[in-house]
């Protein structure tokens, strides 16, 4: 018996030693729920869907920030961003959730870059091209909001360096060129198909989108660097821009699912019941008998009138006076609230107005008036106004009909109306052109004293966790306030 036990003990030592004390550990530690390799498809789906701004990002970036700057909407009980004071919590969200939040917003730029990387590894130039072009769109939106941002270094180390906006724009040029070249490579490569939520893998549409993006960037840098502007134009290689509302770069939302990240973000954020259409928008539409008024705004609860709420109020006293005070102001109209509707990243009307401006600036040949007229028509059609008589009646009226002396103002006013609810792009264009001139705000705030915001402030968490690099960028830009102008925003 004793002997047996000695044997058991000796045997167990031998077994352990023979097996090795880490036998099978490699397999054991492989993730049971994730995969080491993947195709670019699911990554690109994330990049296109989250990149089109789902409800939370929409809420932060559009509704509570840029739509106030663009004077598309106001917020009933007031919010500091409405009178141009910084709202760090909201700016933090915009930054952190664009780059890194993977809890809900999924870091679309990171996913897009990974999709391009894997497509390249798998030797699929078409997928790679699409991902690189979309990546430019996403990063352009970021740099135009913040100025210098981590771009080349982003998603590589834990403390990425910030690139100068000028360098970023130059790289955008080369990226789009590369992207277009990849798209046009002959060969029968597997397509993204429906994994591409925007164009279902249609190469011609991505190419038109790329050209429109080039045109948008040519105009954006035109003032600061006319030579670079021409390089953007040249990169278009006389190719077509978006040529109808069928070419719109848009996200279609799911009318059925309960998950609010798949639903029309404007509709989702209406649950807060505190969004009102801006006084500025109602005034501009009603003063020109714009048929879009009843689509953009709802009749006020109190008397059925279309009445916008002015931007930039100190709402404290009004809010506390009367519980039904805000019922006299119109909420957002049904044009934006379709459960199976779209939100637009870049649409055909914008392309028309860009063309019109480019022609005016002699960057491209063509007829500025014609593009302007096309833009108005397409913008009406976008929200279902198809009656040509109605459109024409609007277009030919005094003040709307193309007037070469007021062309810039007209183009930008119409573009502003067409971009309604895409406050990010509208605010960027107001910064670039000063048009259309925003209504003065009623309350000057205490930080920016009512001066128009030229950028957003960096995220506090980025500042805390990537301090040295943030400081380099701040020193380079001369500060981190909303009054610093980004590189292309020259006076």
């Amino acid at each position: 018996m004793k002997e047996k036990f000695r044997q058991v003990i000796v045997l167990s030592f031998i077994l352990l030693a023979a097996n090795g004390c880490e036998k099978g550990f490699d397999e054991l530690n492989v993730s049971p729920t994730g995969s080491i390799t993947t195709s670019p498809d699911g990554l690109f789906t994330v990049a296109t869907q989250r990149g089109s701004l789902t409800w939370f990002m929409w809420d932060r970036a559009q509704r509570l920030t840029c739509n106030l700057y663009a004077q598309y909407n106001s917020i009933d009980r007031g919010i500091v961003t409405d009178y141009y004071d910084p709202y760090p919590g909201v700016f933090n969200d915009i930054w952190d959730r664009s780059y890194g939040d993977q809890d809900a917003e999924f870091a679309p730029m990171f996913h897009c870059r990974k999709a391009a990387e894997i497509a390249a590894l798998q030797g699929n130039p078409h997928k790679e091209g699409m991902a690189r072009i979309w990546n430019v769109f996403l990063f352009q939106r970021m740099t135009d909001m913040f100025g210098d941002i981590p771009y080349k270094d982003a998603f590589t180390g834990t403390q990425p360096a910030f690139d100068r906006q000028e360098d970023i724009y130059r790289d955008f040029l080369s990226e789009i060129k590369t992207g277009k070249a990849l798209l046009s490579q002959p060969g029968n490569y597997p397509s993204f198909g429906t994994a591409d939520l925007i164009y279902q893998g249609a190469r011609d549409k991505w190419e038109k989108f790329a050209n429109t993006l080039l045109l948008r960037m040519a105009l954006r840098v035109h003032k600061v660097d006319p030579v670079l502007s021409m390089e953007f134009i040249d990169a278009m290689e006389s190719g077509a821009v978006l040529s109808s509302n069928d070419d719109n770069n848009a996200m279609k939302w799911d009318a059925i699912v309960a998950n609010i990240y798949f639903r029309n973000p404007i509709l989702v954020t209406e649950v807060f019941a505190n969004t009102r259409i801006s006084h500025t928008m109602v005034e501009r539409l009603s003063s020109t008998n714009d048929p879009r008024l009843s689509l953009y705004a709802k009749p006020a609860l109190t008397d059925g009138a279309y009445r916008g709420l002015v931007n930039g109020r100190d709402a404290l006293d009004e809010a506390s006076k009367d519980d039904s005070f805000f019922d006299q102001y119109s909420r957002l109209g049904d044009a934006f609230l379709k459960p199976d509707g779209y939100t637009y990243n870049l649409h055909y009307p914008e392309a028309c107005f860009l063309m019109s401006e480019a022609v005016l600036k002699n960057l491209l040949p063509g007829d500025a008036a014609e593009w302007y007229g096309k833009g108005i028509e397409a913008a009406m059609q976008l929200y279902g106004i198809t009656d040509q008589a109605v459109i024409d009646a609007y277009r030919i009226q005094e003040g709307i009909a193309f007037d070469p002396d007021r062309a810039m103002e007209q183009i930008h006013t119409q573009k502003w109306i067409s971009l309604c609810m895409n406050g990010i792009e509208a605010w960027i264009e107001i910064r670039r052109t000063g048009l259309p001139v925003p209504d003065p705000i009623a309350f000057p705030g205490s930080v920016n004293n009512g001066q128009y915001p030229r950028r957003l402030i960096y995220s506090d968490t980025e500042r805390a966790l990537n301090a040295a690099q943030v400081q380099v960028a701040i020193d380079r830009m001369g500060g981190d306030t909303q009054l610093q102008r980004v590189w292309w925003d020259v006076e």
Partner: protein
Amino acid sequence: MFLFPVYGRAQQGQGQMHGYVLNQEGEPLIGATVTIKSDPGTGTVTDVEGFFQLVVRPPDTLLISYIGFVPLEYPFERIGTDTMRLVLRADGIALDEVVVTALGVERKEKSLGYSAQRLDASDIERNSDPNFLNKLSGQVAGLQVSPSANGPGGSVRVLIRGSSSLTGQDEPIFVIDGVVVSNTAGNNATGNGGLDYGNAMGNLNPEDIASITVLKGPGAAALYGSLGQNGAIVITTKSGAARKGIGVSYAAGYTVEQPFLFPNFQQEFGRGARGTYTQFNQDSWGPRYDGRTVTNWRGEAVPYEPVRDQMQSFFQPGQSLTHNVEINAGGEKSTTRLAFNSLRYTNTIPNSELNRSSITFRNTARMTSFLNLDVKVNYIRQEAFNRLNLAGSPDNPTRSFYIMPRSVRLSELQPYIDENGFPYLWDGRQTGSFDQNPYWSINLNTNEDVRSRLISSAMLSFQPLPWLTGHVRAGGDYILDRRQSQVAEKTAYKVSPEASFNIGLTKRYTGNYDFLVRAQHRFGDLDLSLSGGGNRLEQRVDGLNGAGDGLNNPDLYVVNNFVETFASQGISNKRINSLYAFSDIGFRDFLYLSLTARNDWSSALPAGNRSYFYTSANLSWVLTDCWDHLLPGLLDFAKLRLSYANVGNDTDPHRLDFVYASTTGHLGQPFTRVPRERPPLGLLPENTRSLEAGTDIRFFKGRLNLDLTWYQSNTFNQIFAAPVASSSGFERALINAGEVRNTGIELQLNASPLKQKTKVAWDLTLNYARNTPTVISLNEDVDRLVLAGSAAGLSIQGIAGNRNDLILGSRVLRNADGTMILDEFGLPQVEIDDGGNSVFILGHVQPDFTVGMRNSFRYKRLAFGFLLDAQLGGSIYSTSQATGAARGTLDNTLEGRDEWYQSEADRIELGYSANDWIPTGGLLVVGVDEEGNAVDNNYVDPQRYWSRMAGIDENFVYDASFIRLNEIFMGVTLPKEWLSKIKVQQAGVNLFANNVGFLLRKTPGFAPQSSFSSGKSQGIESFAYPLTRSFGARLNISF
């Protein structure tokens, strides 16, 4: 039943002696060791009647020992031929107390080179608190227990000597009868809400516990390897005792729980803003109550008057009822214990309850003369309905009361649902509101969970030769959790109106297999033992989760009935293999040296770094045994201890690779997602080195014992998930960096100022512990690590060169004298330094020191005692206070209201605009303007002042110091003479009160320990439930 041992079983024989070993009451001591002093290898143990036989030769001396009794030496000269009656004295001094140390090895306390403290069943049983972890509070120096704020099913956080790991596991491991069991944290609350499912150790039936040994430092727990880095709590459960017939005992406990610490609400001003009442305003800045008739939010005319007990009436007394039945049986060959325990608990919040039943079976069998088998099975089933929603969840009723206008009556909140299924909310809204009717929360947004748990082990121990012992053991802890929760449709705070539902099934398995071989022998002055063993630990988690949105048929919350469902799986597997050896060397019974060496191989670490080796050395020097006549009569015992240990640690599994995950996507297109944590490059094991020195001195025949310990432990190469800048694309990166040092002292004093054998006794236990954590370094890039909260706002951080539990947040701008610098409106403002930084260190979480004091008195059969515990130093931030201040619901917001409203009334009457008017009254704010000039007569609107101050964190950081009357206890045991007539062996009644009250408290309206999380968010209070006190009785009777 054995009161009168049978004499005269004498059997004459050369050198053969026999006798009975009895306690002072004359009861036999079963299993007492009887050995020859000069040859400890020769000996025997007493049988079920306390009987033994042994061959003795002159000049042998018999040594009779038994745990808890003073060993008796019996010289040969006194050995006669008659059967002896050897009476052992219960060991008040317990000089030779045996302590269960790591790996279940029993060692004499005096030979230990490190601090270990033991609690007995009596320390635990006297009180029927169904969560035994709560009872550890205040009893052990250096053991910090943050009690559950969520009833017996809630989490209790236990820390030994502070927190060593920055973001990793920092609680000790729990070992039951040598088997490592799961103490999975069950609190998933964040600042935005969550539920507390309780940590797994809280499931244990307290009545099963025979003793608890707290192994404090890595030195003590070195043999547990990775797991023992934060110390170990070693639990020995009861086993059956050899006896004649069957022993049955029964205990019942009943406890009533009453919330007593309610928020510091004001009762003078009701709903409204700027002194004006409005029907739907969300604040309590209305006019002073004057009894006028107003229209409330439900459209009814009601008097405008104080609403007392708005919150108090919502709560109810909580109750818990426990039953415990035990059956004991045993003979010479085997003992059996069977225990059944049940708990029924109803919470202080209506519609919330918890039931738990547990059955434990243990059998020990002597299979042959050298082979013992010990088998144990413990099955636990726990069902909870409606655990409390915590922190910032709108479904937390406490939050609702903090923000609800003070003039809203509780009766107005019922009914809570209208005929269309929408909620009635005091803000008049039905959707898109984060105000929440508490009755909606507790009735519709409910949750339930069931846990089935099986803890089992089997150990075969052997002693083939007198000097050789060993065991082979397998233990398993299997937990099956089913948790579901629902949010009803039309819940106002939900962005989409559909109902949602979540159900999770999780299996957790912890398996532990080990063997140990131990040889010991005495060579002259040297007592030597050498042991070797190995262990395999398996940890497996397999979870399946289903979520659903939108109900097909109303009110049916099963996955099948949901319009959309999403399923996900969570799986994790980890294994640690270990081999170890240790040696105990005793020299002349006064000098003891223990050496340990262990190698672990962990599957969670990368190939190449999986194997790690570490050692420890402990020295114990008993001065009183070294020099016999050291202060005789005064000093009974003196010992010096020294311990050095090095312990490695690994991390969670599956963290090394960049892996993609799939989830449900948009319009039928699946999403592929990148990981949220940046995988590490070549991760190394974490390493803790600790040094400990201490002394144990006993005076006056054991009536005064002093135990003093100093320690320092440094944890290097910390493995932690550091939050990273979002431009990295990740939320956090798993890295290996940094060093945290914990230094401290612990003092334990036991005194028996009064001690008579049977009549009167007074025992006093005092413990004191001070721990100072220091972050020596993090990594090159980062000098601070956010442990909880947001880097930009209020957070708990570790900062290199400072502590690891700092509270950071915004503070009021002040000049060098500390005077507030006011803005142009005369209001305080936030400080922003030149670098644009607006967060500053506001305090630290952990107390500077803790003190516990227990007093026990005994007069004949009556016992009385109380326990005080105290924490001094340390801070807590209160989200509730900040929120309530902005809303005007708290009593500190009253100042200046009447005066301001009067000033405003005067202004309007005189026709001044606000800009031209100099306020004649209001809240007087003292400060200077931007130029440094004093601002005179600076009267401001209290509402504006508090809405500004509410956003500045500094104002809501409170001193968390407290002195608490933790427990009062009174017990009586009935005389045996009475009981024996009714065949009852023992019976007693205990009365107790827990959490009786504070003798010192500096937090207004909430308890100093009310963190919503049992993890790193300690130090942040967020809408904590009112602290409860409980009163109860425990009755026990054994047959």
